[in-house]
């Protein structure tokens, strides 16, 4: 990660005030400097940061330090709570009109991801809510924008309404709504052209579409990497059109996404969804708490847990735990583990979500090559049953055979065996730690992320 998270930043300040019973004004001032920096580096708008810091300072001064927390953790807790609150509750609901079709208008700057998001949203409506959406290609300006939506429509098998690029977007929207009524589509998603919020002519066009199509929702699509200007863009779109929601895109990148906070603070409109990739199902409801963690650079523990829960079979997990405890973990178990973890998504993304992961040496810039994992799988699969349970019997000629069978090299086989041995050693230590920990009241993370 290129920027230090708030937790890392605060570590330095915290050293000085460790052991104090109360957070004093001076402590808070010093820590707030770090909070301010962390937020600015996350691209939260300057004015929003100013107000936020003021509010948090007031709340943090004089607070009793909870027994379980250090003063630094206390401040992080307050900061995170305030951030979460500022970003509003989880509101991923989409309006339903009593007189169908429900019309959704997608607006935003160029390149924010409107067309892709339009496709994703339609897909979500159909899959999750069992709706019958129709897409409307109203971007007549960008070359091949219509073609892009049509291609997505074809992929998703969702109809796309288009009149080519010679008809005005206002007329396209009008006819589309008519057509949707006739064909009993219950959702109409209008993909408008990207435009600058200061482009008066094009903003007027959006207002006209709004007048005619009477949308139930107007979503502003915003690139999560947007900097300080996010407030100007959001404010302008909101004033001219009256937004009902925001969709934050490209959150699968490594941006902190401080724009989310700015958007919310300026428009008072809920962030409803986030885009997390180029595939059509890469859209999720917005979780303010997770976003707060991300902005502060504290890792997205909840997403990680959720992903784990969704993929790991509980029975199997128990079994595994026992194996780890008794150190009877075999290469077969390892293979299965690998499979389960991979189901959760790309490994380096998982790692990034772990709090404190950036503190572990070497993990900082670690990138995991998925190909290597495929090699590991191939190696293990080229072993006999006996070899998998008792890897110590693997001698030189067996190594040669395994390497040949898996299409890898003897060096790779050696490396894997060594890693597996180290892992088993580590498991023994962990098992020991857990038992010790139980007596002392639980194993603790280097800091409490919540």
């Amino acid at each position, binding site marked *: 990660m*290129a920027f230090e998270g708030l937790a890392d930043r605060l570590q330095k300040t915290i050293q000085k005030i460790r052991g104090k019973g109360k957070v004093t004004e001076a402590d808070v001032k010093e820590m707030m400097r770090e909070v301010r920096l962390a937020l600015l580096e996350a*691209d939260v708008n300057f004015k929003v940061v100013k107000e936020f810091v003021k509010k948090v300072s007031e709340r943090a001064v004089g607070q009793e330090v909870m027994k379980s927390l250090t003063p630094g953790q206390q401040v992080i807790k307050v900061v995170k709570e305030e951030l979460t609150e500022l970003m509003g509750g989880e509101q991923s609901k989409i309006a339903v009109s009593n007189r169908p079709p429900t019309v959704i208008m997608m607006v935003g*700057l160029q390149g924010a991801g409107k067309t892709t998001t339009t496709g994703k949203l339609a897909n979500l409506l159909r899959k999750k809510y069992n709706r019958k959406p129709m897409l409307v290609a109203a971007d007549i300006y960008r070359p*091949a924008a219509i*073609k892009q939506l049509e291609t997505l429509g074809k992929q998703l098998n969702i109809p796309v309404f288009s009149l080519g690029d010679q008809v005005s977007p206002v007329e396209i929207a009008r006819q589309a709504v008519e057509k949707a009524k006739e064909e009993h589509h219950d959702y109409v998603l209008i993909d408008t052209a990207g435009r600058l919020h200061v482009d008066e002519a094009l903003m007027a066009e959006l207002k006209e579409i709004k007048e005619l199509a009477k949308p139930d929702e107007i979503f502003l699509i915003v690139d999560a*990497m*947007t900097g300080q200007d996010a407030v*100007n863009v959001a404010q302008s779109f909101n004033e001219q059109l009256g937004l009902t929601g925001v969709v934050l895109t490209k959150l699968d990148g490594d941006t902190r996404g401080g724009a989310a906070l700015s958007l919310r603070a300026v428009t008072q409109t809920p962030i409803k969804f986030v885009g997390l990739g180029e595939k059509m199902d890469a859209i999720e409801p917005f979780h303010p708490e997770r976003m707060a963690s991300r902005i502060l650079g504290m890792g997205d523990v909840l997403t990680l847990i959720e992903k784990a829960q969704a993929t790991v079979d509980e029975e199997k997990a128990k079994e595994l735990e026992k194996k780890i405890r008794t150190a009877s973990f075999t290469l077969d178990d390892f293979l299965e583990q690998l499979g389960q973890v991979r189901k959760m998504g790309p490994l380096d993304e998982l790692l990034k979500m772990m709090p404190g992961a950036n503190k572990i040496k070497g993990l900082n810039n670690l990138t995991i090559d998925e190909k290597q994992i495929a090699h590991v799988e191939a190696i293990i699969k080229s072993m006999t049953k006996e070899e998998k349970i008792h890897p110590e019997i693997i001698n030189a000629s067996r190594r040669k055979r395994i390497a040949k069978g898996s299409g890898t090299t003897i060096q790779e086989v050696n490396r894997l065996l060594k890693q597996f041995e180290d892992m088993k050693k580590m498991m023994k230590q962990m098992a020991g730690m857990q038992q010790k920990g139980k007596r002392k009241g639980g194993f603790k993370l280097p800091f409490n992320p919540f």
Partner: protein
Amino acid sequence: MSFFKKLKEKITKQADSVTVKFKEGLTKTRDSFAGKVNDLVARYRKVDEEFFEELEEILIQADVGFDTAMELIDELKMEVKRRNIHDPKEVQAVISEKLVEIYQGGEESISELNIQEDGLTVILFVGVNGVGKTTTIGKLAHKFKSEGKNVLLAAGDTFRAGAIEQLEVWGERVGVEVIKQGAGSDPAAVMYDAIRAAKARKADILLCDTAGRLQNKVNLMKELEKVKRVIEREIPGAPHEVLLVVDATTGQNAMIQAKTFKEATNVTGIVLTKLDGTAKGGIVLAIRNELNIPVKFVGLGEKMDDLQEFDAEKYVYGLFANLIENETEK
């Protein structure tokens, strides 16, 4: 002679139309950034700590980033002390001077592209999704074509729906040929084809489009490395330029973009797009400062000829145009 006067004289000597483009394209940016500086200068009677603090705020709001803003402020403080400046109005000229200095990075005319005198020049375009790579290529193709060059485009974005068609529309508009394969094909193979075609047709310029990719996607970055490798293998010394396209609205993440793309493809310059909005693209200042990647082009509008070669002096002139004109008229 004051810095402003020098700047104005230097610029009025040059082609006027370009200066006008900068001035017009930067209207919104000027209104907010320079407007704030002007306002600041007007409100303060002396140059003190508070003055600098507010200036720091303005810089941060332009996405310059905290570290670069601090560095710039420190340098300004030193200059102010050295020149014994007390009037805030004089500080303004020093700010402009410093901006030009950073943008130029001590080297003159670095914004010029590395165009081969004879033979093929290959330019590779890289960047995250939605920054305007394809549009930039279209506009550049127009520029080269109108200079009488034989231009060819390579449709290397085989991933995003409609990307190939988008480049084809540009090809038709400008009147240049697009080398393509089907959607989903290997972009490296497209490049191979395109280079073959460019050689056969004796093209002067080959502009290579690639799919937008977020810099933390390891596999996609590796794919890009491969694309570049194929180009290198086919023509020694190519690609002659690797241009990272950056959206001016991007915040601090642009720094990570620049770092990662530089590692993967050895970026030689930046195209800063969408500067005609209210965004200031201040992050390129930080990128120039830290990674020494120069800005080569800026997008100042939607029209074909709105993509302009970056010129630090014209840029700063565009930012402070009103002020400079007032100042020098006096």
